[in-house]
């Protein structure tokens, strides 16, 4: 979570410096991205364990978001 903490610190710094308003600070949204191996690496790999994954590997192929 260091990256998020760093970003939040940056936002707080901007607020304290007057670069953004309190409204803009409160409005800040987070994008939480759960990622896996890149598509090329994972094409042949069994589906990995999400936290609530079943013990048996799933048979779907998994792709990372490459945008």
């Amino acid at each position: 979570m260091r990256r998020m903490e760093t970003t939040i610190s940056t936002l707080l710094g901007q607020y304290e410096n007057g670069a953004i308003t309190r409204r803009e600070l409160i409005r800040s949204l987070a994008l939480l991205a759960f990622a896996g191996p890149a598509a090329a690496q994972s094409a042949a790999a069994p589906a990995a364990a999400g936290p609530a994954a079943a013990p048996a590997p799933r048979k779907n192929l998994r792709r990372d978001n490459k945008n």
Partner: protein
Amino acid sequence: MYTNPRVVEFIDSHFVPVRAHVKENHDEFQRLGAKYDAQWTPTALVLDSDGQERHRVEGFLPADDFLSQLALGAAKAAFSAGDFARAERLFDEVQQKHPQSDAAPEAQYWSGVSRYKATNDPSALGATYQKFQQRYKDSSWAKKASVWGK
């Protein structure tokens, strides 16, 4: 993680990005994945400033579609915050910038709801019904709006 410049720019300008990789950040993936019930990768969640999930994208999408979903998430967050004027504007932007996306008919629906919430004027819903007669009339959102035309 994202390499498309437009995606990177949109995320940088709208969100605090947090990445949890199933292998590289295993502990965080386990903890946050359990908290937000992430069952698959990639999964992208738009969270508000209280950490409440406002939108979810599961699975890969091409850049244009992913951008439209991110924009939809930002609009939904504004709606959930009760900022209906801003939500309407953001929902309208989704339609204007991504008119062919799956997000566009949903945005058209919620734009109308946002206007109604902001004004208490039921004609906003009727106007949205009329819009669905012109655009996205075969979408599931047009069916949901159909009740507003009666």
